[in-house]
């Protein structure tokens, strides 16, 4: 499609200028203001920073042997040598939680990013084009959504040996679906807004419309959704670890550590169970609280406009 004629371009600019004078956007400090007034949200950010530091910086300070299996050291209670005791294979639990945290956080973030991106693209295209294309694209999403996802993931994990990139791919393969649905709904709504119709009337092409007008307006919903996807991915990854489909040793994740603790639950080896449990709950809880806080920020900004 050809570029809009100069006159039309000018009109667009005037329209945009008028729009900004009529509805002055709050500058970015207000977002931080709204956010920092929410003590829970600030607390959850702090906790998440601590968890990240624990997983990625912790091993630099606290050295432990995570490579070799030492049967003489298995299931030792906490002591000065092993602050949180040892695992069923004789590895230092605290060090193991750090290593396991790395893969857990990596999977969470990567799935959040990947599924959000893919869901955004899929949902926008379906919602924007509409008609038969939309129907086909959404039926595919419906079909995949009706497959109980854990069965699907276990099936895929049974076919191939799980590695971190693969698990990211597998969880993303089920995680993008609801995002796509959400984005499509938003796109359908935004498509009918006056300014989009106006921009269309001024001769904006599809790409410009999607990039300038539709995507930015889905952003708020998308960020909240992406945050919750991170939490979901951590939970699914943990469940996979419990089902014995986590990453192969010596790599580990919190779910796998927890699963080992569960096996020893009747032996009273509490150090193999509760630290991992607390870490998972704390991380997922913080991400969820953060998501809710971000939603509040966007909703308040919308209400103020």
């Amino acid at each position: 499609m050809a570029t809009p004629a100069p006159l039309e371009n000018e009109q667009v600019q005037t329209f945009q200028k008028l729009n900004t004078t009529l509805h002055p956007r709050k500058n970015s400090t207000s977002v931080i203001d709204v956010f920092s007034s929410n003590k829970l949200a600030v607390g959850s950010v702090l906790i998440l920073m601590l968890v990240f530091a624990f997983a990625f910086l912790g091993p630099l300070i606290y050295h432990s042997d995570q490579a070799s299996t030492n049967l003489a050291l298995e299931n030792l209670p906490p002591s000065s040598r092993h602050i949180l005791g040892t695992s069923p294979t004789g590895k230092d639990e605290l060090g193991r939680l750090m290593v396991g945290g790395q893969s857990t956080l990596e999977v969470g973030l990567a799935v959040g990013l990947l599924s959000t991106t893919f869901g955004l693209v899929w949902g926008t295209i379906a919602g924007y084009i509409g008609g038969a294309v939309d129907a086909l694209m959404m039926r595919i999403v419906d079909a995949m959504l009706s497959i109980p996802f854990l069965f699907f993931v276990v099936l895929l994990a049974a076919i191939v040996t799980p590695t971190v990139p693969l698990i990211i791919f597998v969880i993303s393969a089920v995680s993008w679906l609801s995002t796509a649905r959400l984005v499509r709904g938003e796109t359908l709504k935004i498509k009918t807004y006056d300014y989009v119709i106006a921009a269309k009337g001024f001769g904006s092409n599809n790409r410009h419309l999607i990039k300038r007008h539709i995507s930015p307006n889905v952003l708020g919903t998308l960020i909240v959704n992406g945050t919750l996807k991170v939490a979901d991915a951590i939970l699914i990854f943990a469940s996979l670890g419990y089902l014995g489909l986590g990453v192969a040793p010596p790599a580990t994740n919190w779910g796998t550590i927890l699963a080992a603790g569960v096996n020893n639950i009747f032996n009273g080896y509490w150090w193999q169970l509760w630290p991992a449990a607390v870490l998972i709950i704390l991380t997922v809880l913080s991400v969820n609280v953060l998501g809710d806080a971000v939603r509040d920020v966007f909703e308040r900004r919308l209400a103020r406009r």
Partner: protein
Amino acid sequence: MGGYLLRRTIQALVTMLAVSVVVFIVLHLLPGGLVRAQLGSKATPLAVHVLEKQEGLLRPLPIQYWIWLTNTVSGNLGFAYKLNQPVSSLIGEYVPRTFMLVGISMLLAVSIAIPVGLWQGSRRNRVDDHVLSSFMLVLYSMPTFLLGVVLIVVLNLWLPVFPSTASDYGTNLTVDIRDLALPILTLTLANVTYFSRYMRSSVIDNLLEDYVKTAKAKGASKGRVLIKHVLRNSLNSTVTLVGLTLPYTVSGSLIVESIFDFPGAGLLFWNSAQTRDFQVLLGVVLVISAATVLGNLLADILYGVVDPRVRSK
């Protein structure tokens, strides 16, 4: 209502067809195909070729799909090589137990979540609302298996009320209800958090609507407004939510069944994943998904019954 029913039924059928295509594609994504999975990685090329020919795997894919689909529809889901029996008879034995588990849990979850959500929504931002919300959020942030483990620790290890395993279920003729308590409780709690959060915000939204003001202005008591007006309107969206969360709950049953050794579709599936019995895996995925689509359809029809506006859309 007729047109709405027909439209939704056709949609469900199309969805089921799409599910079958997805499963069929996965079947052919298997490294080396089903034959390799069946004969092992050390099979000679000749043996592989013979079996491929015998199973019709050398024909064009669309024809294979058609044969597989007609077989599936007529109830032939293949043969479980590791368990040495037809997949359909395995499914007939294990899947109904999962339906029971999921069904009871969903019912319990809804009947707990609706009053809790109504209570919280009507007492928004009071202390009791905050306490309940925090409790629900902690439950919500737990992996299902951890929830099950916590329940085992509390209700079996500390207070020996319920057994920690349901493995006797299905083998004994007399069923001890207490065996099922923990699996059902785990799955119920996992859903209550989700439903009550939703119900709460739905109630809050509805309380701001004009019809509530009208009802109050006409002198209706707070209780009457809640029960007669807000509850009904909030129920609508919760019913759809039940349909939408069905796949998640069925997923949860996979976890719950493996924690408590409950002999349902989830445990069958998990054991088959360990032994790589792919015919069972695909059969279970197909049946479970079809059941989920059906459950969704039922929820939508129910939604149409509850809310007349939906039918005309």
